[in-house]
């Protein structure tokens, strides 16, 4: 069941890809531009037909070139958020949302707009909305279709960084309402890691890495295409307090983390992306060091790739932190799995957009009284 995609084509972009997305799962298709990821999304939507392809949703074929099945786009229950949103410029936000409904229902359209934090903006035209607001209308319109598959085509690339950080949090919150498979196309590894459950890395139309986000982000071979410096771990944390010096204390399972100016009230849940090349390892607990975050943990594995570096997996509490160090350093330290180690992280090394709010979704559901999950 769920969404299954297989596509093979010789050109214009060569493709040989197969993947599957479960209900309620967010899969990120990552790759450079020209890798074929958007072509795959268009294949699912019926906007493109590769030479050999199969798209099945909940057991129903939308496209099966072998069986000569090719449902036209408007017969596929698909919600899509385009890179530039492609809103209908002559319609208001609410009309845009209603346009995707089987039976236009203004009340319902305004409710969905509320869900994407556009309360009171239903009667604005797209030209009167900011980029972030337009993106939210596009998401609302895609949801109004009650899609069996939700497709997001680089939906954050056209907004500024601050808006993007906010939208990340909103998408994370919205996911609690989404029961359908979600496919996110992006070239941004940070975005993929913050938002996706699983990832498929595509290079020149071929899958070069696939698995859970944690697996892919720890796999130097999968990341070779996207840049080995993208190797990173993700830690869930809670904002504990904002210090007077501008540092925010986050409580993570690994112990407190001190990061510069994280936005959000104390108690807010966040996800923090920790880049492996920013983490230093030390056998002894170091003293007199400027770094604010020293986490004690256990080495679980040391993964060597082709290059001069290795990835050390360090278990801290229930979570894993990754550290990219040179093979030489690993040998000099004689690191072995099972040994205790200290992972050191410089506060300033965590970029602002590597922290995403992951709000408590129960609050949102209360705001909309009825649970919306069943509807989508």
């Amino acid at each position, binding site marked *: 069941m769920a969404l299954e995609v297989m596509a093979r084509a010789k050109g214009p972009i060569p493709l040989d890809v197969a993947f599957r997305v479960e209900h309620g799962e967010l899969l990120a298709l990552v790759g450079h531009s020209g890798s074929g990821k958007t072509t795959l999304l268009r294949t699912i*939507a*019926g*906007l493109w037909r590769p030479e050999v392809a199969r798209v099945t949703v909940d057991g129903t074929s939308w496209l099966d070139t072998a069986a000569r099945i090719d449902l*036209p*786009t*408007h*017969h596929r*229950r*698909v*919600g*899509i958020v*385009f890179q*530039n949103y*492609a*809103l*209908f*410029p*002559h319609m208001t936000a609410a009309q845009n949302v209603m*346009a*995707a409904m*089987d039976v236009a229902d203004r009340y319902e359209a305004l409710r969905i707009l509320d869900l994407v934090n556009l309360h009171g903006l239903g009667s604005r*035209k797209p*030209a009167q909305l900011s980029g972030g607001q337009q993106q939210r209308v596009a998401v609302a*319109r*895609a949801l109004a*279709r009650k899609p069996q598959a939700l497709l997001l085509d680089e939906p954050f690339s056209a907004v500024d960084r601050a808006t993007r950080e906010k939208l990340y949090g909103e998408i994370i919150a919205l996911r609690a309402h989404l029961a359908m498979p979600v496919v996110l196309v992006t070239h941004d590894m940070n975005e993929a890691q913050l938002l996706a459950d699983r990832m498929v890395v595509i290079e020149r139309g071929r899958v070069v890495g696939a698995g859970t986000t944690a697996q892919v982000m720890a796999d130097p071979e999968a990341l070779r295409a996207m840049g080995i410096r993208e190797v990173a771990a993700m830690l869930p944390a809670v904002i504990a307090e904002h210090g007077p010096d501008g540092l925010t204390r986050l409580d993570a399972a690994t112990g407190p983390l001190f990061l510069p100016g994280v936005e959000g009230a104390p108690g807010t849940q966040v996800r923090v992306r920790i880049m492996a090349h920013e983490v230093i390892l030390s056998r002894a607990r170091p003293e007199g060091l400027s770094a604010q975050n020293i986490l004690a943990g256990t080495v679980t594995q040391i993964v060597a790739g082709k290059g001069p570096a290795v990835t050390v997996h360090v278990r801290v509490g229930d979570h894993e932190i990754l550290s990219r160090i040179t093979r030489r350093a690993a040998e000099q330290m004689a690191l072995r799995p099972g040994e205790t180690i200290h992972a050191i992280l410089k506060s300033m090394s965590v970029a602002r957009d590597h922290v995403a709010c992951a709000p408590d979704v129960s609050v949102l559901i209360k705001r909309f009284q009825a649970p919306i999950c069943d509807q989508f």
Partner: protein
Amino acid sequence: MDWTALFLSLRLAAWTAVILLPVAVFMGRFLAFRQFGGKGLVEAAVMLPLVLPPTVFGFYMLVAFGRNSPIGDLWQSLFGHQLVFTFEGLVVASVIFNLPFAIQPAQRGFEAIAVEVREAAACCGMSPMRSLWKVELPLAWPGLMTAMVLTFAHTLGEFGIVLMVGGSIPGETRTIAIAIYDRVQGFDDRGAAIMSATLVAISLFTIAITYWLSARVGRRLS
């Protein structure tokens, strides 16, 4: 002032615009959205009346629709009179002669719609007809209006083709432009001047309305 000729011209212009509206929508849309081999040739053929002298065009119309032509014979057997030198014949000639004025602006209007917007309409579950009605026509509207006004105004001013295909039969094929020509030939300068001024006023008014409406539509979309 030859009122019969004026009303005949307005009637001819209105019929031409009404008949060309669906043609402009479907041909304009087709040429805007589809890529096919020989598209350039089709577009060139549509533009041909712009560069051909009306006499050349009129000559071929007489050959195609006149007596002893298949179309002329068919018309004769259906309606009991011939097609050329009648109002119907003028409408047919006018429709064909105005194809570039109708199709070209309509095509530009449809081309101005982003591909993603049309794809979004399909992804919203709209059938091609519904997408045309709900999304494409409202967005291509300025282009279509330009097409209709140009067609209307151009038909009012057409002379050569009318003379070739219609002649100058009062109440049947004598349009205002022909009437003006007849007055000048008959040294009735005053009559020619009045009718010419009337035609200038009507044409100016029609085109001014388009500009005013397009400005309104432009505001509505931004």
